[in-house]
């Protein structure tokens, strides 16, 4: 297998807070090859954004490493680091905060081109900026290049952010909730534009989102990693992971999402969790972090031993004792026995 463009190795990040030290990201590892798409999915507090910031080099890991083309970015030579810096770009969530309001679109795109000598003159830079706007489907270019950000709509600004990220011909784009603030009607075409960058230019995407529906569309040919309070709990090819999720948390997420189809959504089978509360990062439960909410947990196992992220075949990894056992016993990992008989369910909350 070719060397991955970027690898995260046992990445851990702790923060000191007033309530003590919290582990925002706990031992997360994955590889990203050329043209790969990996979506990190999780709710608030899952640590997905912290992973993104570490991968982008904006935050140093407490332990573990981010490897770019095989080299640890926090131990690189200065020149290697500058190369990495240019090769990995971020697209932020908020189209209203990510463009400097005092510069025109042209200035925003020309600045990196001129600074890094990718264009020799201002004219060259303008031409290249025009190409970039074409690339992100903002045409005719002359309608945009001299505009200020506030003159564009949210979706158009987000396209400019993509174009800016593309100025230095990056190998990896980290998109942090890049479409979640964009209106539904425009979201699809923005996703299509990003897919085009991947398909035609081989750009690798690390896509952070809370929206499984967006994941299903964007990462159909890629992978999904599901995070829960700092841990990667399930990882696999998108179609299977969403269609036949294994980890009870992923199953609960997929079941909870309403569908834009009245009959389907009202008859959808729900997975009832034992509690709605996401555990406090200051005081994580022992054993599997999900067991206080899990309808399938096994007393004596799940509350004492943290499950490993185990390979269950078909390029899938799951961190769940009952699932792993079911698969090892020849099951499909989805026939779990509810704990109900042993433990009386508590009222929600």
């Amino acid at each position, binding site marked *: 297998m070719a060397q991955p463009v970027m690898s995260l190795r046992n990445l851990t990040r702790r923060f000191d807070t007033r309530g003590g030290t919290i582990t925002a990201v706990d031992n997360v590892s994955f590889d990203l090859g050329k043209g790969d798409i990996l979506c990190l999915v999780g709710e608030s507090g899952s640590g997905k954004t912290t992973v993104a910031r570490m991968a982008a080099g904006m935050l140093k890991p407490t332990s573990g490493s981010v490897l770019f083309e095989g080299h640890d970015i926090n131990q690189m030579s200065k020149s290697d680091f500058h190369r990495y810096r240019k090769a990995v770009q*971020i697209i932020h969530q908020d189209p209203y905060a990510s463009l400097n309001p*005092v510069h025109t679109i042209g200035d925003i795109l020309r600045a990196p081109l001129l600074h890094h000598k990718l264009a020799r003159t201002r004219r060259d830079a303008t031409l290249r900026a025009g190409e970039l706007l074409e690339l992100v489907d903002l045409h005719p270019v002359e309608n945009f290049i001299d505009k200020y950000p506030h003159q564009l709509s949210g979706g158009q600004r987000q396209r400019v952010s993509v174009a800016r990220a593309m100025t230095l011909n990056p190998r990896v784009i980290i998109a942090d909730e890049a479409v979640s603030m964009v209106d539904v009607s425009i979201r699809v075409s923005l996703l299509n534009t990003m897919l085009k960058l991947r398909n035609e230019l081989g750009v690798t995407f690390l896509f952070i989102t809370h929206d499984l529906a967006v994941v299903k569309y964007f990462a159909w040919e890629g992978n999904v990693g599901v995070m829960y309070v700092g841990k990667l709990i399930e990882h696999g090819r998108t179609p299977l992971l969403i269609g036949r999720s294994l980890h009870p948390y992923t199953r609960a997420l997929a079941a909870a999402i309403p569908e834009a189809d009245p009959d389907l959504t009202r008859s959808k089978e729900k997975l009832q969790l034992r509690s709605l509360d996401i555990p406090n990062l200051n005081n994580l439960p022992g054993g599997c972090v999900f067991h206080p909410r899990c309808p399938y947990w096994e007393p004596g196992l799940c509350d004492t031993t943290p499950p490993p992220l185990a390979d269950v075949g078909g390029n899938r990894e799951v961190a769940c004792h009952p699932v792993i056992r079911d698969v090892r016993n020849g099951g499909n990992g989805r026939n779990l026995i509810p704990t109900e008989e042993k433990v009386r369910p508590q009222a929600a909350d």
Partner: protein
Amino acid sequence: MAQATLNTEHMPASSAEVAAQVQKKSFWRVFVERNKAGTLGFVILGSILLLTFIGPFFVSGDNRTDVANIYGPPSWDHPLGFDHSGRDLWYQIVHGGRGVIIVATMAALASTFIAVTLGALAAMVGGRFDMIMLTITDVVLTVPQIVLLGVLAAYVRLNGPFLLALILAITGWPVLLLAVRSQVLSLKEREYVEAARMLDLGMPRILFREVLPNMASYIVINFVFAMSGAVYGQVILYFLGLVSLSGINWGLMIQDAFRRGAVFNADSMLGLLAPIFMIVMLLWSLTLIARSLEDIFNPRLREV
């Protein structure tokens, strides 16, 4: 509350009409409509500048003492009358503002420059440099400004406008520095600044092209406030008699009139009130302008 009447004058017939309306209004018209106070400030400041910079070419006369005119009443040729030495007050008002304004501008420029450079650097560089800057600022801040002015003025012979401006600047920068520093710290976290860091654009570009332009209004507003501070400072220095007493100057006029007991002497009231009035108008116009500057720097308004 809700009005239930149809207001047809605001219901354009077509979108093209709206577009036309949108394009028609000039920036200044929008500004004047929205910002009456700011407009008033500009008008007052404009008149004062006209009076003090252009006025001296037209108001001729001299500043000689003339015993025949001591406390002479106002007349057509001498609208404000004469002071205790028989000098023309109108002449003094017209000729005595330039110095005050020039010194205030220089002082404000200097203190803004010091504050912006050091404050922005402290915020961008951080670490030890930031700590040292903060300590120095705190020390300067804890010393009462008037006392510091007094002591400095007592040791330094203040006979030129540059020196006076410098002394005022030295006491004026710390507050602004803290303000600039905290503003840069917050702007530094903006997503577009992070994007610039991701693009490896380098610290100078990030500071001067990404961060500072977004503070332009803030800096100018603070510059204007620094100017009013410097006007105050000058008046205090003159009033305490810490600046060499020569030339024509509003501060001097106040000090002079006050020393002669203008408060108790109805005849010399104008001699005291006229320069105070000018200084109050100057400070007021600066305050009005400072408050309205936000609108000028708002690109939404500027664009129209």
